[in-house]
């Protein structure tokens, strides 16, 4: 039963859940390869590969996460079933998390084998992508659960992502550092890196808990206006 329900939920999460993260990473890798082959330098290619892992992959994950929360054609039926709808959405997000983790691990391992250094190395490299991906995806899920609008949520996620890219120097300051998604690619993995990653992970977990609280209330998902 366990595997069957997960296979069903993988299908319900949609092809984007399985394809978006690898597609984003493949595109980044292809551009990095092109840069390397065009003679622009190993360092530039490495920076781009790192940005792919820390910035591009989390953005694609967040976009898929918001779609999973917002899009459900059988919402009312789900709410009438003994299986909590929150558990169903959780499984779908779990599928997204697993597919993202697999892609990022393969990508990071491939880059390391090709001689590129993406982050501090070893197990800590996990935090290069896992921390921003968790934070941004959880933020997207929460806004999606509250607003139930894909357009509004994707706009807000894109705005946050872009703002952190443009005003990176502002987000590096101690007050905003726990919210800074691109510390590794903009500052490096030196002092402050671990605290930033832990801050993002903790923030992501809080946002996930808030999302669960919102999704636990059916009237948040289904109101008289829906009918």
């Amino acid at each position, binding site marked *: 039963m366990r595997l069957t329900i997960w296979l069903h939920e993988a*299908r319900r999460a949609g092809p984007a859940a399985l394809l978006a993260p690898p597609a984003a990473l493949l595109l980044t890798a292809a551009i990095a390869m092109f840069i390397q082959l065009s003679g622009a330098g190993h360092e530039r290619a490495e920076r781009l590969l790192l940005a792919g892992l820390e910035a591009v992959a989390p953005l694609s994950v967040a976009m898929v996460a918001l779609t999973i929360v917002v899009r459900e054609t*059988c*919402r009312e*039926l789900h709410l*009438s079933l003994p*299986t909590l709808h929150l558990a169903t959405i959780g499984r779908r997000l779990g599928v997204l998390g697993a597919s993202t983790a697999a892609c990022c691990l393969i990508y990071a391992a491939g880059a390391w084998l090709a001689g590129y250094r993406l982050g501090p190395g070893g197990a800590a490299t996990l935090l290069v992508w896992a921390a921003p991906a968790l934070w941004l995806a959880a933020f997207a899920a929460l806004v999606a659960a509250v607003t139930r609008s894909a357009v509004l949520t994707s706009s807000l996620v894109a705005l946050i992502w872009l703002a952190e890219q443009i005003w990176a120097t502002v987000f590096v300051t101690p007050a905003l550092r726990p919210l800074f998604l691109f510390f590794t690619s903009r500052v490096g993995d030196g002092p402050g890196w671990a605290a930033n990653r832990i801050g993002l992970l903790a923030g992501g977990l809080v946002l996930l808990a808030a999302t669960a609280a919102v999704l636990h209330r059916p*009237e948040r998902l*289904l109101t008289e206006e829906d009918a």
Partner: protein
Amino acid sequence: MHIEIADLRRRFGRVTALDGVDLTVSGGMFGLLGTNGAGKTTLMRILAGVLPATSGRVVVGGNDLSTRGGRVAVQRRLGYLPQELGLYPDLTPTEFLDYVGLLKGLDDRAARRGQVGDLLDLVGLSDVAGRKLKGFSGGMRRRVGIAQALLGDPTLLIVDEPTVGLDPEERIRFRTLLSSLAGARTVLLSTHIVEDVAQTCRQTAVLAAGRVLFTGQVTDLTARAEGVTWEIVTAGSPPTDGVVVSAIARTDGTHYRVVSPRPPSPDAIPVSPSLEEGYVALMRSATPLPVG
């Protein structure tokens, strides 16, 4: 399955959808009638555990719906067909029912598959069991909906406006199917189509503006129009007094059936009322009857 509803209220912001509903449903097929916006869907959703009540008490089969445990206990014995059942267009009926079966806790694969096959037979969809749902007509989608509701052999079946949008043949077929299911179950049929209740239910309730106007035998509702239903045959203009329930043009003129407290014209003759006329008489009187 016995359902007891006492002083049930549900508000959406400033809008009161249900305003002190008291209702008892014992078993068999029960029709819930009312105009659009009367509060039927809200009541169905509360009974299905989809929405919580603002206040009041709902006990279904001894389970209090205000508690999480009570809600889950009811949902384990419930089949629910919502008014708007969006299906997954990329799935076949077999895959859709398999998925819903899993969510209903039917863990045994062989038993689940067997039940899915039986239900597709029952609703007459075995021939298209391998076709994607995206190509299904409204009637076929409704039949998939009733099949999913019957998964797990529920003792309570709640169907909300199941015949809306169906062609007459499909509607009759659907009504017959629902009647055949009512034997050992409690079937709650919410509709604004009086004919659906007339053809399937012995017990009914009428909801208007979130309140119960009537509850009792279908025959008692029909009797509300006794002595106030008239037929007039005229080639002239339609009667202006009362509510014209039907108008059929024939060679001798147009036959009007009218619900009116007094004869709408001197040549009006009293006739036996139908359930529809009983419903019209009730709505027109606008005086809530004592519940019970």
